[in-house]
């Protein structure tokens, strides 16, 4: 068994030794800021096979990789906006970031869904090792499956089956590691509902060409609600053939409060809540339905058309849409084709409490 005690003076020698082993498809046990990790060349399939044998039974569980910086990560995975933010702000650190794999890596360092988990360990020795090695290494905990995370080589060896132990070419012993919790896994591939910028620009253009009807500063959520009620009584009361009320504004700017005012203004007894999750809430007033739509979680145009908005428009209902700027083009087309009027309402933050709400009419 090769076990080397890592000291301040021998780091470069240990790195050379580890590099050689990794290059030859060998297996190392190395320290990280969370626990001892198991490293092989993440681009070498034979080495990965060896790692799986070491781990004993794993099912189809994928294995994460460690890189030394964002540049190396970008060679192997696609970093979206969320991932870029996390790399920039939180790495190196105890976080594993899951991204779409670019197709260079193969299972088990790629999941069934085609994603790879990437870490930048907060450990100078490991970062230097990976930098000099020039390729990612695996970043799985050195325990065999179903055993606890090892914080010292002695503890690891106690639990390790002989079959696994024989596969290790080098144990890099940095003594007892602090018992930090395992890295937090952040999946950045789940869709991030961002505002489609194109839609936002179109919405802003449309506003420039529309008549300004009302403008008001509100100081409390209640005032925002009351302004919604005022708008309803002033503009929606006599509508017969359906209407779209398109709302645009940042998180917490008052869109749902204003919608509550619309419900109240129409005389609905139902509690108006955020439709973010349901996509469309329906409220009754008299024999009619008020449709309250939220596009925040709608992924694309297909999903938008699938949501059932069209059915509400065809029934000539009042349709209030939060985050309308995201799909402004679609909304405008639907209105134009059916000759349905649209009000555009802009919500802006002035301060923590104050909002500016501007109502525009049809172009």
């Amino acid at each position, binding site marked *: 068994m090769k076990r080397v005690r890592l000291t301040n003076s021998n780091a470069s020698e240990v790195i050379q030794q580890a590099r050689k082993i990794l290059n030859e498809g060998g297996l190392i046990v190395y320290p990280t800021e969370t626990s001892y990790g198991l490293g092989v060349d993440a681009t070498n399939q034979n080495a990965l096979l060896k790692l799986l044998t070491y781990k004993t039974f794993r099912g189809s*569980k*994928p294995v994460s990789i460690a890189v030394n910086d964002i540049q190396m990560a970008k060679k192997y995975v696609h970093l979206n906006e*969320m991932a870029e933010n996390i790399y920039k*702000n939180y790495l190196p650190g105890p976080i594993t970031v899951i991204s779409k794999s670019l197709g260079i890596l193969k299972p088990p360092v790629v999941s069934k869904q085609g994603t790879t988990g990437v870490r930048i360990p907060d450990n100078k020795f490991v970062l230097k090792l990976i930098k000099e090695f020039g390729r990612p290494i695996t970043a799985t905990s050195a325990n065999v499956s179903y055993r606890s995370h090892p914080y010292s080589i002695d503890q690891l060896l106690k639990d390790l089956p002989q079959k696994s132990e024989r596969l290790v070419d080098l144990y890099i012993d940095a003594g007892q590691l602090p018992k930090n919790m395992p890295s937090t*896994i952040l999946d950045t591939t789940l869709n991030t509902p961002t505002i489609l910028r194109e839609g936002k620009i179109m919405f802003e253009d449309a506003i420039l060409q529309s008549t300004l009807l009302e403008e008001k500063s509100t100081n409390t959520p209640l005032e925002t609600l009351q302004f919604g009620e005022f708008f309803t009584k002033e503009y929606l009361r006599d509508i017969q053939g359906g209407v779209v009320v398109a709302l645009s504004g940042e*998180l917490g700017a008052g869109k749902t409060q204003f919608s509550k005012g619309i419900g109240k203004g129409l005389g609905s007894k139902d509690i108006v809540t955020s439709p973010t999750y349901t*996509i469309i*809430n329906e409220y*009754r007033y008299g024999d009619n339905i008020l449709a309250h739509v939220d596009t925040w979680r709608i992924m694309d145009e297909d999903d938008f058309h*699938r949501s059932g908005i069209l059915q509400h428009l065809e029934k000539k209902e009042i349709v209030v849409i939060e985050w309308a700027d995201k799909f402004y083009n679609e909304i405008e087309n639907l209105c134009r084709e059916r000759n349905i009027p649209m009000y555009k309402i802009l919500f802006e933050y002035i301060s923590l409490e104050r909002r500016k709400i501007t109502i525009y009419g049809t172009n």
Partner: protein
Amino acid sequence: MVLTKELLKLKPLILGIDTSCDDTSVALLRGREVISSELSSQTELHSEFGGVVPNLAKRLHEENIQEVYNRALKDNPGMINNVDFIAVTYGPGLAIDLEVGLKFAKELSLRHSIPFVPINHMEGHMYSSLLLNSKGNGLVNDQQLINSFPALALLISGKHTEIIYIKEIGKYKKLGQTLDDAAGEAFDKVGRLLNLGYPGGPVLSEFAKRGKRGVITFTTPMLQSNSLDFSYSGIKTAALYKANELREKGVLEREWIYDFCRGFVDAIIDSVVVKLKKAIEENSDVKSVFVGGGVFNNEDLLRTVGRLTKSYDLNYYYPEIEYRSDNAAMIAIAGYVNVLQKKYLSKKEDIEKIDRDPRLSL
């Protein structure tokens, strides 16, 4: 109705179907025992990664439902002939989503002459803690269940935040609910404004574990209100301002983010505790608290509510992790509870009459 030991000896085979949310799900239950529980997104729950439930799957129920159904029947289509009841969600949810499950369930029910049980999705969350594993083991045994009522249900998910008084099974009264955003939604939106992506729930919960308590704090939502209602739009704005303030000061995000998440999560938990406590004190006859919904994936919330119920000497019933987020096993267990009350339909014309109800409430 009042439960008895005799009644609970009934172990019908129940098929549950849910298309009220992003995922298509189908499950099979024998009495309270889960035989299968399948989702359209085949998540690897216990894997190193790839295990986060995609809250934002494309809604493709029509494309998915046959395949998920086949899996739930373990690819043995003949099994449907042994099914005694079909339970399906008819609300609340997006109309167009509900229609898919309802249509599928009606067709099955009519074609195979199987009685039909229309289910309120929230009644599913309410009883999700009663599910047993395939060996018949679980948190609540029959005798405990019989002695559990009256009870309170605390249901917290991306869509809902509500407290229900359960006089006995089938008799409910909503005591409070969110007036704007659900708690789960607040997690996701704050996750978004911190640039931590979507869904925010898992990230914020994880980051909170690394944070120190009391360093960054938020006012507990609805602390001053006398009602049992919830509100999470204010804390969203407060979080936005706090984050901007810290950024403007030029403090590195990694220096404050963990404490920020700790403070946010604590305020949410506190808001829940305050209302639950009030509900317990106003309803001194309750013997148990049933919780359900995806936000209970936050372990701090699960444990804190547990401690509270213990201090009042109440039973605490919470679902296993796989039944906290939306799933069809909980629809089947609600189906079971309805079957015990003989609330099911057998006549063709009655079944056909059932329509989706997007705004259904308990």
